[in-house]
């Protein structure tokens, strides 16, 4: 197991300087903000994901919370990757990320872009949950009916 495979420069950079970090407030013009909280009770990681949709498209996304380098960097990379994408494309991307995280021999497809930096996680099974926490939280924000998703 090579630590440099797990803690690549991209991961360390996004951990130190997470992108799209913070909350999203509902805009006066009616942009509804979907929000969900994620919690990994094993390690105490907590994060919240805020999404503003324009139709099917993710117009803006932010996250906040505290966690390990893998969960913070994964959340940060995720926000960059999904911004501007349609929901269906986001679901496909999550499948590809999940495959990358859980299969040793998965070759990162071109569609993954910077997310490919997470490929080292597959060698550290105990850390897969750290990397998927933000994606599951985004799913909860997007997937739940309006009644169960808190809107601001």
């Amino acid at each position, binding site marked *: 197991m090579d630590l440099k495979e797990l803690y690549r420069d991209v991961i360390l950079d996004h951990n130190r300087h997470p992108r799209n970090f913070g909350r999203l407030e509902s805009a006066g013009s009616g942009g509804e903000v979907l929000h969900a909280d994620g919690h990994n009770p094993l390690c105490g990681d907590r994060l919240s994901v805020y999404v503003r949709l324009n139709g099917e498209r993710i117009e803006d996304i932010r996250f906040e919370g505290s966690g390990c380098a893998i969960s913070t960097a994964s959340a940060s990379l995720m926000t960059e990757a999904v911004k501007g994408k349609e929901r269906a494309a986001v679901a496909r991307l999550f499948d590809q990320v999940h495959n990358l995280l859980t299969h040793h021999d998965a070759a990162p497809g071109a569609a993954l872009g910077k997310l490919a930096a997470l490929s080292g996680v597959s060698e550290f099974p105990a*850390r897969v949950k750290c990397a998927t926490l933000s994606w599951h939280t985004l799913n909860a924000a997007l997937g739940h009916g309006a009644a169960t998703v808190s809107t601001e």
Partner: protein
Amino acid sequence: MAANVSPRAARQAYDAARVRRDFPILATQVNGHPLVYLDSAASSQRPLPVLRAVEDYETHSHANVHRGVHALSQAATSAFEGARERARRFLNARSTREIIFVRGTTEAINLVAQSYARPRFAPGDEILITALEHHANIVPWQMVCEATGCTLKVAPINRRGELLYEELAQLLSPRTRLVAIAHVSNALGTVLPVKRIVEAAHAQGAVVLVDGAQAVPHSRIDVRALGADFYAFSGHKMYAPTGIGVLYGREELLAAMPPWQGGGEMILTVSFDQTTYNELPWKFEAGTPNISGAVGLAAAMDYLESLGLEAVAAHEARLLALATAELLRIPGIELVGTAAHKASVVSFTLAGVHAHDLGTILDTEGIAVRTGHHCAMPVMTFFGIPATARASFGCYNTEDDVARLVAGLGRAREVFG
């Protein structure tokens, strides 16, 4: 803990290298490095005498206990009841009727919660715990409060992780029915003044349960000297197998308590109209027990006493002092739990590196530490941190293990630049 051995004498007497040879698992290579096992507070490893006792029992003596006249059943019964007598001596209990075999500390505490507390507590009654308890000594009492309407009170700790004894004493009143305290905090290493708390609680008419899970491997426990009404511990933290533990209870309390699980073994007669319960201790041991576990536990008690509990405690205290001093020299390290009286645990954070990342980095160096909230989320909340890394020491750890930990933390600082 209270090891009255001069450091020089103990250093000469205690041969950790020889102790290590009793633990085959310590020869394991992890990620290309010799294993450094610093997670005994979560679960200790097993020495050969324990492994052999279990194998010998399973190979030559196994049958169900208390159920047959045939030779193996008698051999198994005598091994199991022999283990009970061994545990009685280990704790200096008056009688084997006071030694209940359970799965572990958690089951022991739940037994007392469900069988002692739940039938007799009512609204207005109070259960008093401390702010440094393991979840296993919090949640069972919350369940009792929910079922009976009694109230849970929590005695606070200070920033060093020490119990504020005076505040605990003030929370004690005639309403206090039960006080449940750790002997040693699993997350912080703090040793609690159990005897003093027992005396204060008894003065108010409360009974005291002591969670001894983290204390039994590090000190000689004398339940009569402590005065505890209930004392609970697990085998697997004191070099015995998992799935076996002991609840000690004062006989008059146990005798007055109803069984909490029904089944075979715990009865004398059963008809559809009426069932009469077995005597102590079997009244609380429904179903076929963990016989080989009890055999392993007895062997572990023999083993610990052959090393000398005081010598082990003195050795661990030296390692704790060394690790504390070495860690404090590393920039960015903050110790969590700096009580004046500690046992065998050093919990810490490293600035800029989350505990979970620290755990992974140390693991790649072959070093096993626990990371997370240590089943003590209220402790983490008190210190305002999500998690710590915790190194804990057992009879087999060495100064070299401490050096490897320090080097591993240096590696973590390198990786995170």
